[in-house]
């Protein structure tokens, strides 16, 4: 039963990781930009949801659509107004530095506006839970979070695979020049992609806010988690993010249960290093490729 509880907890946590990472993955895959302000955007989503819930009493899950709209617009403007400028004037590396600087500014802005104190969103149903028998328990907040994550990831996958704008985004990611020759406004597509990414980051912030207490410094953790998920699951696809996120959630809870609660981060890092090694130096640091693979 403990194994079942661990798997369930891992899947729920993984759903959160996946949703928080999908925007990062999309930007990385389409624009080639490592968005180091991703965690800060997640946090802004959490704070906007907290603000809407706190001032209007609206159920936090119902706050997600308006938060996504606001974040989409902000993301669109952020890309067109800042990131595209950095890419045009310098390189993708410059955009990484820009996003790092923006992350620092956003973090401090959140402290200024909302104070450094932690906040939490307690929906009316926040403390309900379901007993599945045999001592296995799962709370409604996390089930809702997993459900919302899967629904949003499914919607994104649908948009990317079955709509015109999705095809345009994928085409631009695969071959920008060819897309331009077909009449695609690549700059607009990049900004839309960034907007979609910000909207999903905002939605994940809303869901995280329902599940966890949060404060501005948490943004760094969510950027790091997104990076690990993308390395695990691959870039640019919702299904990759889902797979990477679920895997990370399972690794985290299984490590906590089998090795010790202090070790999930160490294990995540170890996996990341192993994956990086497989990608960069599959033959090992000093080894030669296996003869059969040459």
């Amino acid at each position, binding site marked *: 039963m403990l194994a079942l509880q661990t798997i369930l907890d891992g899947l729920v946590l993984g759903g959160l990781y996946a949703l928080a990472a999908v925007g990062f993955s999309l930007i990385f895959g389409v624009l080639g930009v490592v968005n180091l302000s991703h965690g800060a955007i997640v946090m802004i989503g959490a704070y906007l949801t907290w603000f809407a819930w706190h001032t209007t009493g609206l159920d936090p899950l119902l706050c997600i659509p308006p938060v996504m709209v606001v974040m989409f617009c902000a993301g669109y403007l952020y890309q067109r107004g800042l990131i595209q400028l950095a890419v045009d004037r310098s390189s993708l590396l410059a955009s990484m530095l820009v996003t790092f600087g923006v992350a620092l500014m956003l*973090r401090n802005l959140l402290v200024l506006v909302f104070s450094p104190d932690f906040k*939490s969103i307690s929906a009316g149903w926040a*403390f309900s*839970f379901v007993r599945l028998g045999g001592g296995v328990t799962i*709370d409604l907040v996390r089930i809702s979070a997993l459900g919302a994550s899967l629904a949003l990831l499914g919607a994104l996958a649908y948009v990317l695979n079955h709509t015109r704008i999705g095809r345009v985004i994928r085409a631009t990611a695969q071959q920008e020049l060819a897309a331009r020759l077909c009449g695609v406004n690549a700059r607009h597509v990049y900004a839309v992609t960034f907007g979609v990414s910000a909207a999903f980051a905002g939605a994940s912030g809303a869901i995280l806010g329902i599940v966890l207490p949060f404060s501005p410094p948490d943004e760094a953790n969510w950027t790091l988690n997104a990076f690990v998920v993308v390395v695990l699951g691959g870039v640019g696809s919702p299904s990759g993010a889902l797979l990477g996120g679920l895997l990370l959630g399972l690794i985290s809870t299984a490590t906590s249960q089998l090795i010790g*609660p202090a070790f999930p981060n160490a294990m995540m890092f170890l996996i990341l290093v192993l994956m990086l090694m497989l990608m960069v130096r599959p033959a090992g640091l000093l080894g030669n490729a296996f003869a059969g693979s040459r």
Partner: protein
Amino acid sequence: MRFINEQGGVDIAGTRYQLELRLFDDASDPSRAVTLIQRLIDDNVDFFLGSFGSNIVLPTAAITERAEKPMVQAGGGSDQIFTQGNRYVFGMFPRATRQFQSTVAFFKTLNPQPNTFSVIATNDAFSKTFAAGIVKDMQAGGFQLIENYLLPEHISDASSVLASVRAKTPDMLLCAMHDQNSLLIARQMIATGTHVGLLFQGLGPQLASYREALGRHASGIFYSIYWDPRTTWNDPFFESAGKFAAYYARHNTRPIAYHVAAGAACIVTYVKAMQAAGSIDPVKVRDALAATDLETLYGRIRFTAEGDGDAVAMGPSVGQVLKGAGEVVYPAGGRTAELLWPVPAWDKKN
């Protein structure tokens, strides 16, 4: 500091001084804090208040110590701050391993008597040493340890630990971690129906935001009280803790927390030490600080030879959340409300 300056400043050895506070944001980043402190030393700043968290106080105190400049701080309680031979570092709390003695004494007064306990700590300097102190003092008090869990410094999920707590339920669950993590644990306990007879969270329930987040479920949770505005200590500047709290409320919108009172007490302690030394020379003020024994809005200030707060004079009281507010339930002399014991299960609370 604003209040003291509004009163015309302070008189030290016949000269009137206005106090100047230079405030910097270290973003809870130890490396940034070290750079900032070094810059202040280079700018000939003589007296330091600390940052928040032992992980920052430790490296910054090493720099002020080397420069022989006093640091009176209310942000770090880890034992390491006070056991490395530092002479210029003073703390408003007893070191972490000595902070639990009064709470063990309280547990022994409970009827029906709990017998077993588990500890959940996070992997940071303060929480780890605090947890070590809890285990030591609880076992010395005759209580039986079931499990000692260590979580990462930043928690996003504690479900596996709570599954283990449900499988091996102790009479008491004692949490050694910072505010945000405490709230996460409590929320997950409620949301998974993980009930223990007694939940103690060293940090967290002091804050209104914590109690609001848990609502009625917060009722009965125990915690350490480092300061309460209803205490009757005499302060040389504010007269009482209540008047200090009222002054704070007139100038701030954020609810007052013990950190604020402890920070103000650092400044009161500095000023009284300067007056006792008759000088603003850092070395002389350091000696006066070491000999400090005075009442402030925060309580009695007396340091050990190593610089941390005296465990008896500055040790915490035990608080319990009752009807959404924090109340003192131990020691009996300072009690502000009747103890709720035994504590009802989560779903029976109102």
